């Protein structure tokens, strides 16, 4: 089967190389455009398809690359090949500067509109900086790219340049999305809160992705400028941005999506131009209306582009080949691993201590201290002067009637909400108001009441949990570096999964039944090797047998020295696993004690069953 796949790959590559000879000369032109747009749209696919960021200003980066390259080469005598690089760098720099704005960290429409405005500003600048760009009349002194005496003028030759660009772009994207950074990009899209809770630097990754897409747009623009040897602002205006966006939206979330989208749009252009009688210049109009109709129709029918369809085909092919080799059943006991990671492994040392029977004594082993914590929403005091201490090797239950402020307390402690007053100490250090991602790096993580898994496989979800314990950013991902870290993350993830008893490694995480989703979230947290684990209703939706297994797992983790804060409605579960229980009511601590004390406490009974005590 492998041989068959390799054959297919070689055949495909040969076909791509031979295409200009196989098709009538006219098509070489189209092929060049498809490859250029395809590469640019591939960058956009990373933004829209994988990171979920919409850019209505990509045409601006495309234009900066184009103008940057040919102006440098044409007016300042820079070597054309070097100018390709410089144009790309210029676009990437512009992307960096635009992306630096904290707007990028804000999702959705604000970002999209800022980009739209930026795109329009860029078009105005291209037009107004006439002394450099040639203004509305365009820039014409475009030199020729040549290599060893071969001039890249003829589309049949130029095609190979654009082919290299498109192939590199697709390869970069394919490599990136399977890497550590790529997982972070996809994780952000599924849930920013969950991504931050495993320590991903959401803002920085967005910026890097944005710069990468801008760089691809810049290089594509530079190639485009050399290809048609004349550029004017209209090629990079809002219309161009929307065209690129249309390609990306058609492509959806697939490495080949950009090229497919570019092919569809370019061929559609061509068909429309040729089929519609050109008598009254109506072709252009129909094109514009057709883009509009495609965008609206696509969003209504399949908001994620043609990707779902492509993925189905892709899966069929994979199924024909050998599946991911099944994971060897890892040992259930999590004794310190020989290959344990140096950075944070030392901090899990309490595990060993506790396991050997010694009670955690030193102050450094205090897990989590919450002192006088308060959080207001407008006039509502959701949490009021909450204090408790959670020690290493302890399960602390946090219970209380509905609306008592448990979830708010949880969000404040885990760094998703800043507190209004009070302090949070982690291992003795003040971490009050630290963001979730910093909390994760300090060894505190959480699960979510409505499970916040990432839309990827089970194994990848847990590998994402290894984020802070591995290295490799967006650039390493593009270049396919960091394979050793990847292998290590995979090992760690398998171990964590074996620990919670999950075996469906290749399954799509969101397709798992709820009980397994909850276990998967726990596994993802364990992969971080945390010191403090916050569990938000881990038993909700679990069946009786699953609850028993969960209780067993929690007890085992406690015995290894983990500090666990458990918010849970299932009293049977809380009462049986918690060492101590803090009861909240009206945002305050009502009482604190052992499960039996709490169960008998008249105040607690009144809080739950009502005041009108019989």
């Amino acid at each position, binding site marked *: 089967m492998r041989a068959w796949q390799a054959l297919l790959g070689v055949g495909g590559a040969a076909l791509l190389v031979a295409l200009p000879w196989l098709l009538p000369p006219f098509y070489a032109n189209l092929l060049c455009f498809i490859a250029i747009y395809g590469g640019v749209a591939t960058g956009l696919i990373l933004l829209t398809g994988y990171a979920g960021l919409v850019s209505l200003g990509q045409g601006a980066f495309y234009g900066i690359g184009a103008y940057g390259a040919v102006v440098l080469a044409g007016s300042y005598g820079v070597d054309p090949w070097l100018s390709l690089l410089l144009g790309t760098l210029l676009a990437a720099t512009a992307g960096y500067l635009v992306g630096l704005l904290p707007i990028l960290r804000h999702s959705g429409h604000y970002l999209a509109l800022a980009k739209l405005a930026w795109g329009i500003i860029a078009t105005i600048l291209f037009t107004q900086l006439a002394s450099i760009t040639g203004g509305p009349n365009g820039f014409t002194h475009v030199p020729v790219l040549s290599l060893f005496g071969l001039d890249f003028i003829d589309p049949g030759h130029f095609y190979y340049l654009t082919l290299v660009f498109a192939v590199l772009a697709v390869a970069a994207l394919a490599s990136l999305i399977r890497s550590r950074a790529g997982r972070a990009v996809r994780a952000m899209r599924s849930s920013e809160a969950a991504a931050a809770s495993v320590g991903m630097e959401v803002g920085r990754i967005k910026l890097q992705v944005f710069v990468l897409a801008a760089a691809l747009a810049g290089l594509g623009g530079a190639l485009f400028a050399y290809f048609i040897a004349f550029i004017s602002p209209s090629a990079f205006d809002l219309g161009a941005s929307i065209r690129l966006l249309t390609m990306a939206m058609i492509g959806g979330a697939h490495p080949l999506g950009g090229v497919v989208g570019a092919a569809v749009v370019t061929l559609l252009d061509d068909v429309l131009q040729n089929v519609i009688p050109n008598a009254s210049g109506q072709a252009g109009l129909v094109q514009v209306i057709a883009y509009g109709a495609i965008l609206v129709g696509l969003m209504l029918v399949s908001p994620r582009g043609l990707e779902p369809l492509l993925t189905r085909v892709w899966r069929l092919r994979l199924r024909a080949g050998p599946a991911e080799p099944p994971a060897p059943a890892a040992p259930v006991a999590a004794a310190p691993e020989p290959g344990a990671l140096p950075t944070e492994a030392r901090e899990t040392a309490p595990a060993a201590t506790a396991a050997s029977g010694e009670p955690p004594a030193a102050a450094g082993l205090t897990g989590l201290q919450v002192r006088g914590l308060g959080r207001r929403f407008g006039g509502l005091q959701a949490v009021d002067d909450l204090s408790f201490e959670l020690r290493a090797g302890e399960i602390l239950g946090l219970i209380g009637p509905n*609306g008592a402020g448990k979830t708010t307390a949880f969000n404040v402690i885990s760094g998703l909400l800043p507190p209004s007053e009070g302090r949070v100490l982690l291992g003795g250090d003040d971490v009050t108001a630290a963001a979730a991602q910093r909390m994760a790096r300090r060894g505190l993580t959480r699960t979510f009441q409505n499970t916040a898994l990432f839309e990827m496989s089970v194994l990848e979800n847990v590998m994402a949990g290894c984020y802070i314990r591995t290295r490799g950013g967006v650039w390493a991902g593009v270049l396919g570096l960091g394979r050793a870290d990847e292998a290590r993350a995979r090992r760690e993830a398998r171990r964590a999964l074996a620990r919670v008893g999950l075996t469906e490694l290749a399954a799509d995480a969101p397709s798992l039944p709820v009980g397994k989703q909850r276990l998967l979230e726990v596994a993802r947290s364990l992969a971080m090797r945390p010191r403090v684990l916050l569990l938000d209703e881990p038993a909700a939706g679990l069946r009786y047998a699953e609850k028993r297994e969960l209780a067993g797992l929690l007890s085992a983790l406690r015995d290894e020295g983990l500090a666990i804060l458990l918010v849970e*409605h299932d*009293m049977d579960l809380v009462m*049986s696993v918690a060492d101590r229980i803090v009861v909240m009511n*009206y945002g305050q601590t009502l009482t604190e004690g052992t499960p039996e004390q709490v169960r008998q406490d008249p105040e607690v009974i009144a809080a739950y*069953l*009502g005041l009108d005590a019989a």
Partner: protein
Amino acid sequence: MSSPERRSDGALLQVEGLEVAYGGVQALGGVSLAVRAGEVVTVIGANGAGKTSLVHAITGVAPKRAGRVTFDGDDVSRSTPEVLVGRGLTLVPERRELFGALSVQDNLRLGAFLRSSRGARVRRDLERVYEIFPRLAERRRQRAGTMSGGEQQMLALGRAMMSDPRLLLLDEPSLGLAPLVVQEILRVIEALREEGVTVLLIEQNARAALKLADYGYLLEAGEVLVAAPAEQLEHDERVRDAYLGAGPVVP
């Protein structure tokens, strides 16, 4: 354990085999209950027992996976909340869902949005709400969002009353309120019953709810554990166990 004899007669609201799931999590697994005209029926249960899922499914706020809801003899399983209000089934939601930037009076007037053509009767109902809640009358020009939690709960009740309901669904009216305010809200429910309004009261505050109600259902883990007349349920051991646990699950 739902009691079959309560299904037979012409109940105002009848729920049969209601199932609700959110993204695969089963919240309700086949709940049946009945509310007869003029009764106060309560559904009690601990956090996460599925009480809010139940009212949301009955009123069409959340989708049902299976089951049937009959209101006044008609199948309303596929109705939306905006349609049900017009038929006389009104929900007072857990979070009150008031229009914070509008005045108290506007909130009340919007409660009668679907009846706005009947000016005289709406005005009379408005006066009646102000009689029941003098606090609201004092603050009729104040923005709803600036009021205290208790006042907001009163406004939510008043707004629902403005729709001239035949059945009021109250979802945890005592939630997050100070004890004295809870007492006041409960008094109002008592008064509503006197006026002949049928009430389905969802409460966590079991003791207070059972004192008030004719009939009660104890919900646990998305299923009806006990269904019995309220005074019987008041002394049932299983209520306490449902709230505070019956004992360890793990040996």
